């Protein structure tokens, strides 16, 4: 339970990866605990989340609704609603500095500039009563002290970078005048304004048409490569992740249950939950058959089952899973799994293909 992710995480220089920039450590989330104090009781939303992000890499955080992936991001960003939320333990270090012990003003200055965020639903995340130009340009005016004219010019440049046609005209338009995909591009442009080192994209394509989803993903990937940013991509869509991410962290009930390089995870998932997730991807070659789903519901976080939180839904569950909480173990460099049978899964690949 109190396992510290740092012990098991990869060394500062990644073994492999497309990153050309020096893979300096940007973000370190360590043993983060967050709970929501509601009228019905205390919901333990994060129970010791640890992950890290290096410059130039993309970490995908995967999980069902309620697994805590967005809450982790909000806590990192410092936009968690407190109360009802409360951070009860852990550290978030941005370039070595613990953000949780900073003053609010120091944290504010990191927002947008050091770490920026793209939200899921751009229609509600953009302010309906201001032009998109205003909303992008105000960051230059407030944070960089630029003039109205210069900041608008920069806003037009940004809209151009995210491939919005006719940016000089569209900069004067309001969010509701954009289509869903274009609006998400505006959201991305806005997050890039202050040239952040870390970009957190919280389900950036969930609210979009499938055809547009791919375009937005490509755009994010391209921008991440160009700017050599660290990107955290939060999603529940396994299909989206493969092309974009370098590493994947799978979350369940407020914990990281598996972490691996993208290809390792797909080739040899080492946690029953990950296996179940991969099996639930609809496959063309199995057309006509019933879609596979994970039986049961995500756990109630106010009353999380004892032992491994996944045991009520797990095919491999044994008696000891009800009592022992599996620690997040390092199976190989950069490969972590929190399952009592992780070693077994790691060495027997037929478990996956047999699914």
């Amino acid at each position, binding site marked *: 339970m109190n396992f510290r992710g740092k012990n098991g995480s990869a060394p500062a220089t990644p073994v492999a990866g497309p990153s050309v920039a020096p893979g300096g450590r940007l973000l370190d989330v360590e043993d983060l605990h967050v709970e929501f104090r509601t009228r019905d009781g205390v919901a333990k939303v994060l129970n010791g989340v640890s992950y890290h992000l290096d410059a130039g890499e993309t970490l995908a955080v995967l999980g069902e609704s309620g697994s805590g992936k967005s809450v982790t991001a909000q806590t990192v960003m410092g*936009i968690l609603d407190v109360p009802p939320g409360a951070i009860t333990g852990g550290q978030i270090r941005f370039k070595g500095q613990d953000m949780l012990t900073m003053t609010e003003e120091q944290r504010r200055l990191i927002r947008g500039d050091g770490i920026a965020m793209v*939200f899921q639903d751009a229609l509600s995340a953009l302010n309906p009563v201001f032009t998109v130009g205003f909303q992008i340009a105000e960051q230059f005016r407030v944070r960089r002290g630029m003039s109205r004219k210069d900041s608008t010019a920069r806003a037009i440049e940004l809209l151009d970078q995210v491939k919005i046609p006719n940016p000089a005209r569209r900069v004067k338009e309001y969010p509701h005048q954009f289509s869903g995909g274009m609006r998400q591009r505006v959201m991305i442009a806005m997050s890039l304004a202050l040239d952040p080192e870390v970009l957190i994209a919280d389900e950036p394509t969930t609210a979009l048409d499938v055809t547009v989803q791919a375009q937005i993903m490509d755009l994010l990937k391209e921008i991440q490569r160009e700017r050599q940013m660290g990107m955290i991509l939060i999603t529940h869509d396994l299909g989206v992740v493969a092309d974009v991410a370098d590493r994947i962290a799978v979350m369940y009930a407020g914990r990281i249950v598996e972490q691996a390089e993208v290809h390792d995870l797909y080739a040899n998932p080492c946690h029953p939950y990950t296996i179940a997730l991969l099996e639930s991807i609809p496959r063309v070659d199995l057309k006509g058959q019933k879609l596979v789903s994970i039986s049961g519901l995500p756990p109630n976080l106010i009353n999380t089952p004892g032992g491994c939180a996944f045991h009520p839904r797990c095919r491999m569950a044994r008696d000891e899973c009800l009592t022992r909480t599996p620690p997040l173990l390092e199976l190989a460099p950069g490969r972590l799994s929190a399952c009592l049978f992780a070693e077994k899964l790691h060495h027997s690949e037929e478990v996956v293909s047999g699914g």
Partner: protein
Amino acid sequence: MGRYVLRRLLQMIPVFLGTTFLIYYLVNAVPGDPLAGKCGERPCPPAFIAKYRAEYNLDDNVFVQYVKYLGNLLHGDFGQTLSGRPITDIITTAYPTTLKLATVAIAIEILVGITAGVLTGLGRGGFIDNLVLVSTLLLIALPVFVVGFLLQFFVNIKLGIGSPTVSSGAPISELLIPGFVLASASLAYATRITRTSTVGNKGADYVRTATAKGLPRRRVVGIHLLRNSLIPVVTFIGTDFGGLMGGAIVTEGIFNINGIGREVYRAIVTKEVVTVVGLVVVLVLVYLLANLVVDVLYAALDPRIRYE
């Protein structure tokens, strides 16, 4: 936008005709004789009555009377009182005073109402929030004349601040207390509307986005949150302006202000049909214009609303 305003102006014509006719008809229907008591202790001589009836077209039926009245109105002729004073004269002296009073009231409503609403909305559940909720409830529950007399007695007389009666020039300083009294109930509503919309919007995604952009909190609240929260309040306060003008009767009575309310009251009591209708016609116009201004303002505040 231009077309929208034009259409709204045209829509005003039937509304104007309908309201003025109803007023004309109703004041006529009130039982009683406008000439009673006009000639001292004896009935008026037949010649006087005949002259009066001819002058005010009283032998025609009410529809014809109304049409004739309207015809005069179009020439800018509001008619005159029984004592021969032109009604335009009353309008030009009484309206500016009431306008001033209503403006003071609206200013108080905006300043106090919106400030209190935003503060309580941000600190929901706290001491100030509860204090404001209780005091606004009190203001809504108390009739205007109670608030008026209480403030007049305690503030004007006991504390000696301002003046219990407003002098003829109606300087702004003397109108502050009456303005507050006139605004009291609306002030309470404006506070509550602002509070509710602030509470509703402060958890909105765009507020979170503004925070995530690293904007200072005062900008997040003062620009992003406030601008959205003001939309319903502006609508309320704008339509209230017309209501305050007409609702000034009680306040003007308490503080002895020579405004439109007192003139209308006097004219109703003495059955001066033409005076009542004349004064109310202008009130209707003010009300319609205030509404139009609100609708135009609404589009300016919320770009999602387009009038095409």
